[in-house]
């Protein structure tokens, strides 16, 4: 799980909806050079299966989100921004690894109204039966390219969501967020 509760800033807190913003942890883009070998290496090093398109998987404190064919965004909770170099060494010639630690701000949406808020921006069906736990999408909210994923449900089974928003666009994203929340019934 990617959690930095101490650094997270509560943007919206109301009954049934909490939105928090946090600095992203160590992040890297992983692009397969030999996908089969890469999958084996990831399984061996981190004990998880690389997700295929539209999915994410978490293990060993690292989340991999499939963002394009043969491409993943990897987030490592609580690790230093030098971690992409470590990962590059681990993966050797199975993949190209590029550090992206400063590129995104992370938003966390939770509560029974989280999906309704997100749905105002996302033109992807977020029905819990469609966008199931471990689903991921590279999509657009208010003309801003975002990476959206739904980690496994927490106790209580209310879906919660993560969004990686390009840092430079975070102010505009927050404008969407706040004006959309203001019009929720």
């Amino acid at each position, binding site marked *: 799980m990617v959690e930095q509760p101490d650094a997270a800033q509560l943007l919206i807190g109301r009954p049934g909806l909490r939105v928090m913003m946090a600095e992203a942890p160590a992040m890297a883009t992983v*692009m397969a050079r030999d996908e089969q070998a890469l999958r084996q290496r990831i399984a061996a090093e981190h004990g998880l299966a690389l997700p295929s398109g539209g999915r994410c998987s978490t293990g060993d404190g690292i989340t991999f989100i499939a963002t394009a064919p043969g491409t993943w965004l990897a987030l490592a909770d609580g690790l230093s921004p030098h971690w992409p170099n470590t990962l590059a060494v681990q993966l050797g010639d199975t993949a190209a690894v*590029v550090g992206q630690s400063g590129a995104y701000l992370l938003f966390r949406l939770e509560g029974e109204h989280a999906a309704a808020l997100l749905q105002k921006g996302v033109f992807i069906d977020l029905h819990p039966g469609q966008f199931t736990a471990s689903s991921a999408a590279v999509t657009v909210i208010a003309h801003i390219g975002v990476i959206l994923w739904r980690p496994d449900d927490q106790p209580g089974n209310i879906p919660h969501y993560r969004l990686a928003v390009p840092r*430079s666009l975070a102010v505009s994203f927050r404008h969407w967020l706040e004006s959309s929340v203001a*019009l929720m019934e």
Partner: protein
Amino acid sequence: MSRLASGGLIDRARPLSFTFDGRQYRGYAGDTLASALIANDVRLVGRSFKYHRPRGILTSGAEEPNALVTIGRGANTDPNSRATTVALYDGLEAVSQNRWPSLSFDMMAVNGLLSPLFVAGFYYKTFMWPARFWEKLYEPLIRRAAGLGRLSGQDDGAVYDRDHGFCDLLVIGGGPAGLAAALAGGRAGARVILADGDMRIGGRLLSERHEIDGIAGIDWAAAALAELAAMPNVRLMPSTTVFGVYDGCTYGAIEQLAPKAGASAQRYWKIVARRCVLAAGAIERPLVFPGNDRPGVMMASAVQSYVNRHAALPGRRIALFTTTDSGWRLADDLRAQGVDVTAIIDPRDHSPHDAARRAHQHGTRIFSGAMVTGTRGGKAIRSVDVRDADGQVQRVEVDLLAMAGGWNPSMGLGCNMGGRPVWCDEIHSFILKSPPPGMTLAGAAAGRLSLREALADGLRAGSEAMALLGFAAPLMPVPKASDDPAGMQPLWHVPGGRGKAFVDFQHDVTDSDVALAAREGFRSVEHLKRYTTLGMATDQGKTSNVNGHALLAAASGKTIAEAGTILSRPPYLPVAIGAFAGQHRDEHFRPARLTAGHGWAQEQGAVFTDAGQWKRAQWFARPGDADWMATVRREVEAVRSGVGLCDVSTLGKIELIGPDAGVLLDRLYINRFSTLPVGKARYGVMLREDGFVLDDGTTSRLADDRFLMTTTTANAARVMQHIDHARQVLWPDLDVHAISVTESWAQFAIAGPRARLLLERLLPHVDLSDRAFPYMAAAEIEWQGVPARLFRLSFSGELGYELAVPAGDGDALLRRLAALGADIGLTPYGTEALGVLRIEKGHPAGNELNGQTTAGDLGLGRMMAGDKDFIGRAMAGRAALNGPERPVLVGLRCVDKTARLRGGAHLLPMDAPAIAANDQGFVTSAAFSPTLGQWIGLGLLRHGRERLGERIRAHDPVRDGDTLVEVCSPIFVDPEGVRVRG
């Protein structure tokens, strides 16, 4: 007051106050503006488009052509609102439109006297000469005289939201068919959205008196709605108009929200539905007879709505002109409210027997085989002329004439994807047999007009959709209801009589306009529309098209089936442009990109400029700076003499990784990169396929198999695409990956003679000496525990570095630099100073990389490696791209040191007249050079390199400039490049 003492779906416990044309009235929750006006005896609500004829309320639905009003005031003005669909709220302010000085006394009604001038196509015929008068006189006059409501001219005060919906079944229309379809879907467990434009779902069941399964239709609807509302898989959307059908089973809809702080509020929906049932009902057809537009002539179905649903009685002496059995039901409904119909006029010879008997018993005069040939009255109807079966004309005193001319299925949405309606003899109207993929029509929208048919059809459509989607639909019996056959005989036109007989009420198109169009050869329905404007404007002919097309068919000797009808395009009903824009207005029109240093720059007094989506600091004004020029001069001088700091994070940054990265770069750039040593940067130029320059920048080698490319801010995305195209399409065999890291890094240029001093303070552990870190060096280092990248680059021509850290640390780095540089005069500088510095150094930038210049034009031709291939090489070799006549980059300095040079000025020989034939080039960039103390510029000049020292003119007719300039080398400062090497 014409409010009935009891009944109706209004909440008498919730009285509401509103105004119309400044007068105060009262209504109830559950009223529309129209029903409240009727209850308050307001008959005259508007003036017609062309003739300014007095008009009243015609319908009770979204098809209303007459009762268009302006709601709200000031920035919250909402013109052309249909009074028939505006839900009444407390404090609503409505005013009538298209009249002067008042609705009751409209001077423009004089247009009616000039009507012989205003026939179809009058503006093509009447205002022909002199031609120059058209734009200045005729058109403004016509626009002022004819029209609808006006915008406020202020910023729109309305509130617009947006949402997205996904469902298995979208049901459009919540009448009997729609409710049945939604129940079929809901009970099967499918995700259902039921959208209805009305504030209350129920369709005609709310306005007519029927029995379904032994209970009142209205109670059946309420029970169905309660069941649907309790289903978690069903979303009920009242006040939601689906306005368009698009590819991929996507539907556009507008949900009307409760007004917020006096402003209208709407939500724009994009809905994707696996299946759709269009159950939008049918629209009652007016009858075309002289005087059919007089206030007090109303659709029979509308009278039913006002009486049954809103308990508002639109008249007391009521006549009914009907060609349908359904029209006769109005007489029963009125009788139930204690109102007897004065007369029923039915052109058919055989009236419905039972209804006629009941009417007769209550003293209603029944005219069979008769027609209404005229109406009398001023701003309200007083009597009608009835021509009976024997041809005798009788006058009947009335204050309301209800008309029922048959039903047109409301299937416009189904035509959005190109399906063309076909004529159906059975119901004497058009029906749609080729709906868009995923859509089924049901009920009256499909031409099944009786209640029993509609219920059965809705159920069938819903169940079929479930079966297609693989849901096990529970078996549902068809609710029992009366058959109510809507027996009818069409009457397209009442012959004889005097006065105008309107086909299109909104655009004042009469029967004679249609006949004239046919006579003049406009015999296609589409031509008819354009020539007469039939079916244009806000109602798009919902009440007029079929009548108009039937009249055209008759006038041109065709059957109606042969004449056909038009296709309906989105939007089905008018949608405010603002609803599509939503929150993306004013400064939020598009998202803005802010660098990590934005906040710090704001604190330093930065003025920002747009560079694409980016906000870049243009300059940093300080108290004491006389103007922006003084600020820029101060910033330039600081870089040339001390040290400056500039945020260059917006430049595109792309990492290329893999054993073939060098090979790819060799093919992208005109010069070679595969030989670049690790730890070095090199300036590169890349061409488009057509041989012109695409972009330039520096690329550094961070490791054997890892390069970092920089692009200009403007071309960052384009170069990324270019690389992906090369990698994925041209040379997929190369083992190289590329990805943008622009967002990842905050990068700052530190430039000036004291730049090294500042960096030594910041990075004491890094050897910054010329020997260890010479010009064009690049290194991965660390700053305060985070990875950093240091480059020895210079755009300014001074000793310069660029330092990058993860964007999250950018703000901290800036603040640290500012603190360390305070005592040595560290000065932040913006894009203006950056521009001046690069012009002084002759570096081409966006103004020169304008898509029309070659590497040779820019003096970079010698960079082209002769022994390798690269994109653009072949086309760059074309003669036209290498001719001696091509304008090339030169420097320009004003001969008079006080004169100003302007970008865009044309370059002319000194004594040549300022005509295009003498044009030899133009000034691409100009700036006041603090270093030289005068205006200088870069330009593209024919034979420029052979003309150094020549004096020419910079001619600027736009700004009245004509300056003598001397052609010189584009490098004004430190041509030997000593300073960059420290």
